[in-house]
């Protein structure tokens, strides 16, 4: 029976550098496989909607105006998304990927969680649209 079995552990840790990472000031880089916010590549997407069907949380909506000319409207709900990357696995064209840097998604108003991207065959322009 030892009375203070943690004694040397406690004493040693007094002189060791604390284990704490000073997060907001010194952020360690996140692993590159981190599943952060979903990124949609308008060029590769061919509007097959496999991702919309396989998403367990109804977080993606895709309106297809013209598949050939690649004119789509793509709604992404960050607050519904459960970051499981099933859509990335289901997408045959590799148009979807999860960013490993954008994971601080906290925000004060709910509207900011819904993002709408309009693809006009030429370039992608993201619009801040209030959720319909």
């Amino acid at each position, binding site marked *: 029976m030892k009375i*203070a079995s*943690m004694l040397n552990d*406690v004493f040693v*840790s*007094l002189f*060791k550098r*604390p*284990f*704490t990472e000073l997060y907001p000031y010194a952020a360690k880089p996140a692993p590159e496989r981190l599943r952060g916010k979903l990124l949609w590549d308008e060029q590769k997407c061919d509007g097959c909607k496999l991702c919309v069907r396989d998403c367990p949380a109804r977080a993606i909506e895709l309106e297809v105006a013209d598949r050939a000319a690649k004119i789509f409207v793509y709604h992404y709900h960050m607050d519904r998304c459960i970051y499981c990357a099933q859509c990335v696995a289901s997408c045959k064209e590799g148009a979807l990927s999860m960013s490993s840097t954008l994971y601080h998604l906290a925000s004060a108003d709910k509207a900011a969680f819904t993002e709408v991207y309009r693809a006009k065959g030429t370039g992608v322009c993201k619009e801040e649209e209030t959720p319909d």
Partner: protein
Amino acid sequence: MNVVLALIALVLFPGGLFVILGSLAFEYADRKLIARFQNRVGPRWFQPLADLVKLLVKEEIVPTGVNRGLFNGLPVAALAASLTAALYVPMAGLAPAWGFRGDLVVTVYLLMMMTLCIGLAGANTLDRFSLIGSTRALTQLFSYEAPFLLALLGPSIAAGTWRISEVNGYARENVWMIVTQPLGFVVALIGLMGKLELPPFDAPEAETEIVSGALTEYSGRGLAFFRLGRDVELLVGLTLISAFYLGGLANPLHFILKTLALLFVTAGLQSLFARLRIDQTVGLWWRAGAVLALVQLLLLIVLKLLGVRL
């Protein structure tokens, strides 16, 4: 003229403001040490001050079915008791602001007022957790109070006086009493930890069992006064023990070194042990604490009768 001096002593220097700031500094040192023992960074230096001010500006909820006067009065009484106790103790190494023959007993009594107020506060509210918390606080009070008093009597018997400043003076001239009365020192230090309900003895406010014990219903000012009262009591207790056992406090440097050394020991003890159940604490005090204190006293009296110069 001495009215002005007395007022300054009461409000500014050895009295109110200095003790409050000193106790906040000591709470910071305590939390920082525990955090460093647990290998983490711990709070910033102004954290206790921020906590205190935030609690003061928070809304105070008085639960229903509670004696309003008692609910608001108890925290003030607890803080007042510990602040007055600070006047009799050689704060900052200088002579105590007040002193008369027998002020040791008054100081110990004032220090005990805090636990009494917490016990009453817990019993006053109808919340079940605080009822359990107050019964535990009072049972623990009766377990450590006697050995703690005996442990403080040792040095005063050796010095032959009941006046703290004289015991302080006696301790300065002679061998440190931690050497001549080691048992008394141990009981006094552990007794102080029991009085302040520091971790091994924090059954009365065991967070995982009874939320926060007697203080569950308090918020805002009441909570701020209770927490501040406990910090002041920590400072006063440490000064008292270092004045008696660590060769008296001659000057502010002595005061700072010795009290911080004692704080280091208590912070270490806090992070070493799991929380004792209330019956284990009571058993520990009556079996170990009281016996040690009595043996120490017996030894002392016998030596004094034989005229040995301690």
